[in-house]
């Protein structure tokens, strides 16, 4: 198995798709950093936004909207097309002949996961390190100061004085312990999510024979339908029963309420089960 992953990994990092998606994320991460750098040029240090609030994975980051719109397509690029390329070049039989079907298909999914993970993890980590090296942790946050209404409303979500509809930020204890570790934690979440979506798109490729551009559609449609479901739930429920179905809100530093991580884990498990079944189907498929 390790040989299969090694071979496919070296193939992946030389592919244009991987390079393009990695470059897009890197450009976004660096652009966010440069934006803050230029915004605070000549300003007093007290007016700077805190270093960890400038992290590119924050939903209030200046170009997050563009990145979020591009994300469903970027995760497909690293390795999902590889299976269709192998088919088009008729080399899949030779590769399978040198290893087992099991190693080939499982190796494809694992390599896809690594690709999806890497394209997010490295650029965002670079952004986080640069932000912490350049700026200070001056506690100038989006939440405001202790005892101000936004602090209770957004951050903690509870107070003896205010009855707020916000449920507070998830993993509050971690945030209060260290905003930096909180960012690192969310960086892992985003990277893992990206990796799992790459696995899913790789698994979708097993059902296709040509028109590989259509492989960009499943994740986009998944996000689109989740958005419709989210607006339906939002309209037809009170805020106590509302559950956020915008999956990106679960993996970035967002202040939206209604996040229930059990639902998110359920969604991830569904994606993984689908991917496993499609890989199993391909392994057991009679090629003759």
């Amino acid at each position: 198995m390790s040989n299969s992953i090694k071979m496919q990994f070296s193939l992946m990092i030389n592919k244009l798709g991987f390079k393009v998606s990695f470059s897009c994320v890197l450009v976004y991460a660096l652009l966010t950093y440069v934006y803050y750098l230029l915004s605070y040029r000549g300003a007093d240090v007290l007016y700077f936004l805190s270093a960890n609030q400038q992290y590119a994975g924050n939903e209030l980051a200046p170009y997050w909207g563009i990145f979020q719109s591009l994300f469903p397509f970027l995760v497909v690029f690293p390795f999902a097309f590889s299976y269709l390329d192998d088919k088009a070049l008729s080399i899949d039989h030779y590769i399978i002949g040198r290893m087992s079907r099991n190693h080939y298909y499982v190796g494809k999914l694992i390599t896809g996961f690594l690709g999806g993970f890497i394209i997010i993890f490295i650029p965002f980590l670079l952004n986080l390190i640069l932000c912490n090296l350049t700026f200070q942790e001056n506690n100038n946050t989006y939440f405001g100061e202790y005892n101000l209404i936004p602090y209770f409303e957004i951050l903690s979500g509870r107070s003896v004085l205010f009855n707020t509809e916000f449920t507070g930020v998830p993993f509050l204890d971690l945030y209060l312990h260290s905003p930096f570790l909180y960012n690192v934690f969310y960086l892992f979440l985003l990277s893992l999510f990206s990796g799992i979506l790459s696995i899913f798109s790789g698994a979708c490729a097993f059902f296709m024979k040509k028109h590989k551009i259509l492989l960009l559609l499943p994740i986009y449609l998944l996000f689109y339908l989740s958005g419709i479901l989210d607006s339906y739930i939002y309209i037809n429920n009170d805020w106590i029963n509302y559950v956020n179905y915008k999956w990106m809100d679960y993996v970035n530093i967002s202040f939206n309420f209604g996040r229930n991580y059990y639902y998110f884990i359920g969604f991830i498990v569904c994606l993984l089960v689908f991917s496993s079944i499609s890989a199993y189907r391909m392994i057991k498929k009679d090629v003759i």
Partner: protein
Amino acid sequence: MNRVRGMTMINWRKWCKTLLIIPPTILYYYEDLLFGKYDHNIASTMMVKIFGYVSIGETHEFVMIVENLLYLVLFNLLYGNFISEDFRQRGIYIFSRVKSREKWFYKKSFELYCLAFCYAFIFLLTILFISMSSSTQKVDVGTLETFVIMLLTITIFLTISTLLINLISLKFGNGVGFVSIYLAILILITLALKSENIALIREYPILMMLNPATAISFNLGDHFSYQILTVAYYLTLNILILVIGARYIAKYDISLKDAESY
């Protein structure tokens, strides 16, 4: 259309794909179909369903918004390999038979244009139906005028973006072609939404029209001359891309392709 022994065979599958826009559009605006009717203008409702708007001083301009880009993304993905696939998979077979590659490209572009027209028509008809079912007003001349202008601009915009994807795909593969154009559109939309902060545009709002993400809906319904200007601008862009594309196709070496590195 494929020519087989002097007869013209229509590939219905290609045309049927245009119907795929109906389910997601209805799903997205299901509320309008379920809930009661209100007294609002159908043309304005159609505009709001497709575009967002940005305010520059006292004027409000419609712009494309990311939330409502499904119709564009779907068309780009469905037909993003319309020309490039022929080139990559059947290039030698086709070009050893056709007399002029440029003519072949113009023919394919025209076919793409027809597909875009059909797709935009179905999309707008669905939006019109949804808007009508949520409004107490009836379709008037203004609604039809908006419908026709939107049909023309959306058709040309779909054709331009898909042609560019196909041309980029020849060199870098379908995925890269799509993402580069989608990214360019996202940047244009961001620029359109931030145009209020640009001093030059605040002074001369008509400059906004140069941004294709804004021009598609610039002053629609207000000034007929602007509408004609918008369509003319899009046509010019389209012709430019067609001519450049045809020259590029004519010089492209079919044997030089590296399918493995895409």
